[in-house]
C-alpha cells in the first residue's frame, strides 16, 4: 500500500487537543497573531481527553475578587496534600491566572451554578465550583478551533523531531493518520506537548470486557511523558503515582459527596475508621497527618489498613443525605456529568443510595500531573519570581530547547485539574510565542534522514503482522509477533506485581523493583515484534510503546526514592517511613535514547515562606 508523506509547517505545534492543548491553542493565537498555529490530536478535539464525557465541577478556582482564596492559599493546600513536595513557583503561577480562565469559560457559555443567596459561583468545596459541564469539552474545543490555523484530528503522534543544527533543540514531530495511514511530518519552531496522563500502566481491577472502565480515560496513553523522554527531557516525581478512593466498580467521583452532600465513610460495622489509624500514621510520616485537610494518600492508607484488618467493605453513608431531593439530584447528575458508568453500575445492581450505602474501593495506580499527584516533565518557572535553580529559559519550557508542556504533561504541580490545565496551556503558549519572537531567523532544521528512518519504525508493526500472519492458520497466537493487547497486559502485570499495584497492596522494595526492571527489559525487546493487523491496532501499538517508556521511568523513580513518602499511593517496604532528612527533594530522571540508560538526580524543593 502506498502511503503519502505529508509535510505540515508551523510556528507552534500543539500536541494533544485536550484541556491544556485547547488553552495553548487559544493563547498562541492571542499573542501570535501572524503565526501559524497547528493543533494535532489523535482523536477529535470535540470530545477528546479526560473531559470527553464532561465534568460536573471545576476543581481549581480561587475566587480572588470575592476574597475567597488567594494563590498562596492554594500553594499551601497542594503542598500539604503532596506531603511537602510541589513546585510552588509553578503552582502559584497557575493559581494567580486560573480565575481569568474560569471567567472566560462562563462568558463562552459553560453553565456554572450560582449560590442563590450570594450570587457567587456555587462552591462544592473550598477550591471547587459546580457546573453543568456535559458540553465543557465541545465549548473549549470551539474556542481552540477559532484560534488554530489548522486542527488535525485522528493523527497519532509517535516521536518528536530534533533540530539538525543544535542537538538539544526540538524541531517538530511525526505521526500517522489513523484513518488514511498517511505519514505526517510536522516541522515547527516551538512544540507544546499537552498529551494528557496515563491509565493502563498498572493492571486494572476490572477484567475482560470491563478493562476499559478505568478511572482515568483508557485513551490517556502516556504520550505526554514518552515523547519528551525520547527527546532527552527530564522528568520529575514519576514515582508519585496516584491511587483514588472511588465508588466501587464504576470509579464514580466522591468529591461532591464528601464536600457538598456531606456524606461520610464508615467500615462494615458502622464505625468511623480514619481516627483509629491516626496515631500509627503519625509514626510513619510525622506531622504531615495533622494537616488540614488530611492528605489524600493518608486517607487512602487508613482505608487500606481498615480493609486489611478485615472490617471491609468501606461504605459511603448516603442514606441520610439522599432524603433531600436536591441532594439526590446532585448525587446522580454528578455521575451523569462525568462518570456515566457509575450510574450504570448502580442501576444494574439495584443500588439506590437512598436505601443502600454504596461501597468504596481504591483504584489501581495512575500516572498524571494534574490531580492529587504531580508526575511529569521538569519545567522552567515563571520569569518574575521563580528561584534561579528553577529557571533556565522560558516559562514551562522543559530541559529541551523549544519544547514546552502543560496539564498532565508538567510535573510538580498537583491540583491544577481541568481549569488549571487549560491555564497552564495558556502560560506555556505565551512563553512559546515569546521564544519564537526571540529566535528571529535562527529556526530549527529537520534532517530528512531522521524522519525517513522514523517512517520505517512507525509502520514496522504492520509489516511484522503481514509477514508473521502467513505462518499460522488463524487466531491471536503467533511465535513471531505480539498483539498490542498482549503486550499491554504483560506490562500491566509486571507493574502490578513488581512496582506496587493492587495485587501487591501497592507495596514494593528494591529486589522487586530490580526484578521488575529485568522483566521490563525483555518486554522492551519484544516490543520490536509488535504486530498490528490494521491502522487502529497500529495506534494501540504506539500507545503501548509510550506506556512502556513511562512505566520504565516510574520504576526507575520508585527505585531511586528510598523512602515511603506517600503511604496510600505506594509503599517501599524496605524504607517504610517518610524521611525528610534525605528525601525532602524532587527526583529527576533523564533517558538516553541511544544507550537506553537512565540517569537519576535530586533537585531541591523551594517553599514560599510567610
Amino acid at each position, binding site marked *: 500500500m502506498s502511503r503519502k508523506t505529508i509535510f505540515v509547517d508551523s510556528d507552534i505545534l500543539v500536541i494533544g487537543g485536550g484541556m491544556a492543548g485547547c488553552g495553548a491553542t*487559544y*493563547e498562541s*493565537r*492571542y*499573542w501570535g497573531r501572524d503565526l501559524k498555529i497547528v493543533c494535532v490530536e489523535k*482523536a477529535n478535539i470535540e*470530545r477528546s481527553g479526560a473531559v*470527553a*464525557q464532561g465534568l460536573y465541577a471545576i476543581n481549581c478556582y480561587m475566587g*480572588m*475578587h470575592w476574597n475567597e482564596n*488567594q494563590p498562596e492559599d492554594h500553594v499551601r493546600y497542594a503542598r500539604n496534600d503532596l506531603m*511537602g513536595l510541589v513546585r*510552588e513557583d509553578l503552582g*502559584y503561577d497557575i493559581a*494567580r491566572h486560573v*480565575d*481569568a480562565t474560569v*471567567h472566560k469559560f462562563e462568558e*463562552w*457559555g*459553560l*453553565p456554572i451554578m450560582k449560590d442563590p443567596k450570594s450570587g457567587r459561583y456555587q462552591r462544592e468545596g473550598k477550591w471547587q465550583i459546580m457546573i453543568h459541564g*456535559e*458540553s465543557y469539552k465541545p465549548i473549549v474545543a*470551539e474556542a481552540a478551533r*477559532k*484560534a488554530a490555523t489548522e486542527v488535525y484530528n485522528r493523527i497519532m503522534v509517535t516521536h518528536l523531531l530534533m533540530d539538525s543544527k543544535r542537538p538539544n533543540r526540538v524541531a517538530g514531530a511525526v505521526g500517522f493518520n489513523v484513518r488514511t495511514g498517511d505519514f505526517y511530518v510536522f516541522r515547527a519552531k516551538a512544540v507544546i506537548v499537552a498529551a494528557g496522563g496515563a491509565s493502563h500502566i498498572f493492571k486494572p481491577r*476490572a*477484567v*475482560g470486557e*470491563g*478493562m*476499559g*472502565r*478505568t478511572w482515568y*480515560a*483508557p*485513551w490517556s496513553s502516556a504520550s505526554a511523558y514518552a515523547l519528551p523522554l525520547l527527546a532527552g527531557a527530564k522528568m520529575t516525581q514519576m514515582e508519585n503515582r496516584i491511587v483514588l478512593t472511588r465508588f466501587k466498580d464504576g470509579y464514580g467521583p466522591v468529591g461532591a459527596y464528601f464536600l457538598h452532600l456531606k456524606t461520610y465513610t464508615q467500615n462494615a460495622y458502622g464505625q468511623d475508621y480514619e481516627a483509629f489509624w491516626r496515631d500509627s500514621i503519625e509514626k510513619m510520616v510525622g506531622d504531615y497527618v495533622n494537616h488540614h485537610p488530611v492528605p489524600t494518600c493518608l486517607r487512602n492508607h487508613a482505608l487500606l489498613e481498615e480493609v486489611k484488618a478485615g472490617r471491609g467493605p468501606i461504605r459511603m453513608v448516603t442514606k441520610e443525605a439522599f432524603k433531600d431531593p436536591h441532594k439526590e*439530584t446532585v448525587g446522580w447528575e454528578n455521575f*451523569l*456529568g462525568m462518570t*456515566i*458508568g457509575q*450510574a*450504570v453500575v*448502580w*442501576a*444494574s445492581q439495584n443500588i439506590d443510595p437512598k436505601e443502600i450505602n454504596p461501597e468504596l474501593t481504591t483504584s489501581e495506580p495512575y500516572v498524571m500531573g494534574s490531580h492529587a499527584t504531580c508526575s511529569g516533565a521538569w519545567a522552567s518557572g515563571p520569569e518574575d*519570581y*521563580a*528561584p534561579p535553580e528553577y529557571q533556565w529559559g522560558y516559562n514551562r519550557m522543559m530541559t529541551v530547547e523549544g519544547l514546552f508542556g502543560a496539564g498532565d504533561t508538567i510535573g510538580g504541580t498537583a491540583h491544577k485539574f481541568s481549569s488549571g490545565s487549560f491555564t497552564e496551556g*495558556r502560560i506555556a503558549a*505565551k512563553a512559546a510565542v515569546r521564544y519564537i*519572537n526571540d529566535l528571529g531567523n535562527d529556526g530549527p532544521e529537520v534532517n530528512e534522514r531522521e524522519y525517513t528512518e522514523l517512517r520505517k519504525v512507525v509502520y514496522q508493526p504492520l509489516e511484522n503482522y503481514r509477514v508473521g500472519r502467513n505462518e499460522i492458520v488463524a487466531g491471536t497466537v503467533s511465535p513471531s509477533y505480539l498483539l498490542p493487547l498482549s503486550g499491554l497486559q504483560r506490562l500491566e502485570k509486571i507493574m502490578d506485581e513488581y512496582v506496587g499495584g493492587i495485587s501487591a497492596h501497592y507495596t514494593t522494595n528494591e529486589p522487586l523493583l530490580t526484578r521488575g526492571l529485568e522483566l521490563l527489559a525483555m518486554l522492551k525487546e519484544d516490543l520490536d515484534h509488535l504486530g498490528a493487523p490494521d491502522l*487502529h491496532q497500529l495506534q494501540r501499538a504506539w500507545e503501548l510503546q509510550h506506556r512502556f517508556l513511562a512505566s520504565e521511568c516510574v520504576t526507575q523513580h520508585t527505585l531511586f526514592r528510598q523512602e515511603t513518602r506517600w503511604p496510600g499511593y505506594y509503599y517501599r517496604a524496605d524504607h517504610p517511613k517518610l524521611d525528610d532528612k534525605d528525601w*525532602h527533594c524532587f527526583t529527576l530522571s533523564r533517558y538516553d535514547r541511544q544507550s537506553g540508560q537512565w540517569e537519576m538526580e535530586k533537585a531541591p*524543593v*523551594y517553599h514560599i*515562606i510567610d
Partner: protein
Amino acid sequence: MPTFVYMTNCDGCGYCVDICPSDIMHIDTTYRRAFNVEPNMCWECYSCVKACPQQAIDCRGYADFAPLGHSVRVLREEEKATVSWRIKFRDGREKNFVSPIRTTPWGSIKGPSDYAQPTSAAMRSQELAHEPETLKVEALPTLARSRFKKGLV
C-alpha cells in the same frame, strides 16, 4: 458499559466513528453499519451515543460486574441546550434528569483574533490574554523572589 448498535436503527452515517475518543466505533464492511470493535477499550463515555442521530447505539454494563436488565439512555439536544437522562434499574425503578449544557448560541465564541492586538508591553508582562480585566482584581498577583526558601521550612 460497552456500546453496541441496533441493526435496524443504524444507517451507517459514521458520526460515531468520527467522535469516539477511543477509535473503537467502526463501520462493518459487510453490513455497512457501525459496531464497537474493541469493547474492552470503551470508557462508556457516551460520546457516540450522544452523537448518533438515529439513537441506534446503546450500552450494556460491563459483563464482569454489571448484572443485566438495566439501561441508561441519553438525549442531547443542542437546539434546546439540554441533556436528558433516563435511568432504569434492574428491578424496573426509573429516574429521570435534565440539565442545561450551554448558555450561549453554538458557534458564538469570539476567537482571540477578534480582540485588539496586544501591546509589546503586554507581551513582556506576565499577564495572559484578557488580563487583568478578566481576573476581576486590580492587578495580577506576583511574589518577591526572596519569599522562596530552599529545603525544609
